């Protein structure tokens, strides 16, 4: 067993390491960009909602429909569907760079929804108390809405990240690389079962670890 394990490492170690790095790259960049886009959209969804501070039916409905449309397209179809757009944004539609765009288009609306539902949980009364104290809206957003929902936000982002890891597995189709791609190309297409098992095990550890981390952080931030 030890000899076969070191043999395996010799043969595959580098590939697996490289694939892991690629996965981390894709996930972290796409996540960051998706948060930068999704979080403000989530806030906008809450603020323009009927009966809320900046009520605006047009913006709210437009955003709602737009998000629903994107959310109803499976990632694999989205990947090809927006190829021209991807090319226009980053100049290429292949490789890690080319896969970031569809990953963001896929994840940002999801994050917007998750943030929306997290922020909606915040007690309306606290916002009112801050309005009554003459606090500016942008400070209320930051110091009341986001602060009070931070535990739910962390949980939402954990879910989004795990979804993102799943989506990166399909990134191989446009040459994005990553663990999913490795398992598919070698494990499935070339019958290297060991590679498949190891990458799947790695993915499971990754997802489990992330979820535990997210749960722990959320529990720590929750004070009630």
């Amino acid at each position: 067993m030890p000899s076969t394990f070191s043999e395996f490492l010799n043969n595959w170690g580098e590939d697996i390491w490289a694939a892991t790095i690629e996965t981390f790259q894709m996930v972290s960049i796409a996540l960051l960009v998706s948060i930068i886009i999704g979080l403000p959209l989530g806030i906008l969804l809450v603020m323009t909602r009927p009966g809320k501070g900046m009520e605006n039916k047009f913006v709210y409905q437009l955003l709602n429909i737009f998000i629903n449309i994107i959310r109803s397209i499976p990632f694999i179809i989205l990947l090809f569907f927006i190829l021209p757009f991807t090319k226009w944004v980053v100049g290429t539609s292949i490789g890690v760079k080319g896969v970031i765009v569809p990953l963001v288009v896929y994840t940002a609306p999801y994050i917007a929804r998750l943030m929306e539902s997290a922020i909606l949980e915040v007690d309306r009364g606290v916002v009112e108390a801050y309005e009554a104290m003459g606090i500016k809206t942008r400070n209320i957003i930051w110091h009341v809405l986001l602060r009070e929902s931070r535990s739910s936000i962390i949980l939402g982002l954990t879910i989004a990240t795990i979804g993102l890891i799943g989506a990166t597995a399909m990134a191989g189709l446009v040459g994005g690389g990553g663990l999913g791609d490795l398992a598919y190309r070698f494990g499935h297409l070339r019958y290297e079962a060991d590679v498949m098992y190891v990458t799947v095990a790695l993915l499971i550890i990754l997802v489990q670890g992330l979820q535990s981390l997210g749960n722990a952080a959320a529990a720590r931030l929750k004070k009630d």
Partner: protein
Amino acid sequence: MIQLENVTKVFSGKKGSIQALDDVSLHVKKGEIFGVIGYSGAGKSTLIRCANLLERPTTGTVKVNGVDLTALSPGKLREARQKIGMIFQGFNLLKTATVYDNVAIPLKLSGLNKQEVKERVEKYLEIVGLEQKHQAYPGELSGGQKQRVAIARALAHEPEVLLCDEATSALDPDTTEAILELLLKINRDLGITILLITHEMNVIQRICDRVAVMEQGQVIEQGTVMELFTTPQKATTKKFIGSVFSHNIPESTLTHLQGNGRIALLSFFGISSGEPALALVSKHFNVFPNILSGSIIQMKQEPYGQLLVHLRGDKEEVEKAIEFLIEKGVQVEGEDHYAVNIQRVS
């Protein structure tokens, strides 16, 4: 200090519109505690939320300290609101922040520097009696303590007026009493004008100087608390007072007693005037008073009591006894009024 002039508020929704306030005018004087009482849905919350424009009146004006809030720009309105404190039934604290931060964060956001923030937080947490709880989270506090934090948060802006929206309605009787004491102290020591709304008569009776009764979006009666207790005009007002004094006498007893003598409701201020006068009645006249029910409540200035008595004796002697009681400063209502009382009890 707070002047609402002909304020109306109409909420229009999908299922038609609701007139929550119907031409309401109120003047709260500087330094007083003004109470608004009414049943659920009367429009009390809408009224108090108009006082700092959390709810913008459909028509009418709202002046606080001489400034017409309805005419201010959003920026100026925010400035004005910093001088109008508000506390709520649900406390409305940040769950994720300590007691200290709950008071400190709004101060920081209002532009005070670190040192000023620290001084104010410490000062006002001490005033509300929470100097030991700086690092506790709201989830670790009792309802009364949470309301104290909310009061400290409001006071820390050093407002001229404090609005209280059912501030004690979520609290048990003992805690209510303690919070009312605190509000009295704030009014007395810091000179802060208080406008409060409630559906509980004991809150009015305990700390208010003046009171308005609301029903269906209108103020149906207002005056000093004493006036309202002694000469209530409207049925709703009488009902609220009846909720404090419930003279619940079986019908059969009443019929039995009415045969020989007279039933009278005696009201008096101060503990000295009621019972001693009644004791003298039996000494000076050929009348035997029999107390059917009675109670004394603590009002802001002095105690106020009501006794329902049966005065047994000749008609003439009973009349003389009643005159004597009135002379002694006791207010006497006869059988007619008592009939009203029965209604308000049931």
